């Protein structure tokens, strides 16, 4: 209601080198679609600081096949995880470094981590934090950290 203060960032630039989002085949559509379209270097885009972050004026129910994509991809956990990490890179980083927090719990949920393995998941990410936070592709860095761990490699997605 009140005119928003346009904040050019609340700190997403923690990943200063700029994590770009590897545009793979079959990236979903709708949410964050505009981000993935030929975008290299998410960070400047995010830091433009629109009030809806990555989503701009997009709205889920309006996401359609007009861009030649499959709307059902949006239900896909992997896709949701990709958008989540891109939107919350800094807050997720904070929770990973702390070894606790709602963002890393949410990530665990999106990666399908079982309750019993959650603690190991969070510790492993905390241990691999320096690599994760310096990587160009945060999702790939997270996955490679998981791959190195016998219990967690099954959660690579």
């Amino acid at each position: 209601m009140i005119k928003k203060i346009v904040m050019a960032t609340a700190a997403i630039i923690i990943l200063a080198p700029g994590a770009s989002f590897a545009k793979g085949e079959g990236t979903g559509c709708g949410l964050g679609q505009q981000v993935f379209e030929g975008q290299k270097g998410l960070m400047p885009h995010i830091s433009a600081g629109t009030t809806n972050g990555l989503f701009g004026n997009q709205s889920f129910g309006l996401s359609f096949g007009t861009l030649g994509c499959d709307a059902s991809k949006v239900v896909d956990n992997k896709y949701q995880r990709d958008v989540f990490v891109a939107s919350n890179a800094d807050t997720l980083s904070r929770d990973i470094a702390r070894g606790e927090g709602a963002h890393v719990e949410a990530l665990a949920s999106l990666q399908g981590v079982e309750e019993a393995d959650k603690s190991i998941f969070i510790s492993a990410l905390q241990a691999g934090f320096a690599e994760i936070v310096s990587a160009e592709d945060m999702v790939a860095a997270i996955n490679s950290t998981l791959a190195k761990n016998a219990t967690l490699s099954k959660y690579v997605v």
Partner: protein
Amino acid sequence: MNRYIFFTLLLLTHFPLASAIDNNNTIDNLLASGEYDQAVKYSAQTDHYLAVLLQKSRELNLADDPTWQTLLHYKKGIFNGYESQIDGSIYFHSKNGKYNPQAELEATLASFFSLKEYSKRIPLSSQCLYVARYYWLNKKIDFDKQKLPEHSCSHFKTYEKSLNAESISVIFPTAFGNSPASMFGHTLLRINKEGQTEQTKMLAFSINYAATVDTDNNFLYFVKGFTGGFRGHFSVIPYYSKLREYSEMENRDIWEYKLNLSKEMVDFIIMHSYELEKTYLDYYYFSENCSYHLLSLIEVGLHGNSFTQEAKSWVIPLDTIKILDNKAMIDSYRYEPSQRTKLQHLIKDLNSKEKKLVFNIFKNGLTQNYVELDTFDINKKALLLDIAYEYVRYRKIEKASEVRVELSNREREILIARSKLRVKSLPVVVPQPKASPHKGHDTMRLIAGFGTTADNEYSTLQWRGAYHNLLDPSAGYIDYYHIEFFNLTANYYHTQETFRFERLEAISVMSLPPRTDFSKEFSWHFSTGIQNTDNINKDYFALPYLKGGTGLSYQLGNSHGNYLYMFADGGIESLVDLQENYSIYGGYRIGMLTKPLSNWKVHLFKTSHRTLSGDKRDKESLTIEQNIAISRNLSLKLSWEETILNQTAPTQNASITLAYYH
């Protein structure tokens, strides 16, 4: 000649029969091309299944059904006509649909037969866009799927599956920054997912109604916002995006209110949200704003239990939550502190050595402070790094972009060091404030009572439109913010037997954020209105005034609700019966606001004004005002004031009144 007439008449009588054979075809054509009003009209003479449905809908009087009314957002006008609050033409299938529930219902039934898609951007048939209407009409009439085939609507199914709705919460972010006006807050919905936990709730979708602002010009923003010049849209995006905006960027505390809704009601609301998302409504800042239309969306889930009827002509988000509360719609509620509140909570428990270290890390980075940091044990170190990170992040918000990059590097440095410690942080738990905003006093206020001066007695009546006075009971409000709109005072003087309007204060705002070593904000106040002349033997209710000031405020002692403040003030007032008939003054004000008991507030302040220009109006005054809360919406107010005007003899004014909040 007769033969020709005979044959012509014979031919003419056969036309109706001939067209009857063609009729179903005609109707199908009309339906396919979206001419629903026409299709409705012509179906009457046929045996098309549409005619059957129309007949049933009329028998059941569905157009008058509260559910139909709320689905279409019809409001009764002054002359008993209807008007839908929806403004997008896509929402109506009948040319007169916006004003005619019956016509719209019939045209909607017709539209269900059609495969026609709305547009390239919205490639859906009516059945697949107006899913709530279809669901409800089908339930009431029971469509024969052979005669009216059901479309498969995969896009809606994806929407429903993705939202995975189990319950709905109203999310209320409260005030932020040094802005009492933001106390009005905002409301949005969060669609809680099946199996959601407190930790994963940020993954839920949220539904938000807001104006799409197409101007950078402040004046236009103001005017268009009040007069419906902007379009309002519903949007559905992940809650984490909104959480980021409110909790992290704007540092607003959030209250969540989980609604009492059956699964069927939840599903129906989700269906309706899908319908609303494709259209728009004219956005009116006062009346049809974010909170109002969130209510109008939720209303459908209650089969016509009208909330929006309860709304006053202006809608404050908090009032919408109270409406839900009054209707027993709130199942439970929860407080989620902002990042800033969490930070403040952590910092207050640090000793001065620890605070200094945090500040130094912010100022100079980690490298210079490693030695100092190493003097602490590992868990303390972890805590200090956590706090240092939050502090850097918090201070970064106000900085220019070059400094922000440097601070971001600092943040990364801190987090890397923190992660290497390998210990887990404890979750930050901020105690939930005793009173939730929806349990606070109501926002309109009526005051009645008596006053006395040295040579007079008077009865007084005051009415305030909104919102919260510094002296009003604080429960549920931020106690150092004051904002009032439309405050009208009238007195009746017993000796003179005269009645006068004394003051109409259009707006009065005051902000007293207490300065700590964590946050150093300035206090400020501003008010404007019109008032009557001092001379009660005259009635001249036409003297505008404007005043304001800036200053400092400090918390007194350790408990909440006690402040010491000082202002440098200035103002201008219009006068009558004097030389210049205006006066500009400058001065100061020192005050103390205290809460000796939880329901007893005392405000003591001294004001000093010196005339800078115009008529001489030097003033010294001392005021003590008190509020004793008797119940949530009833308070006793006592006031005593001594004033010295232009160095003449002091005059006193005391009053005792009852305040009723509604």
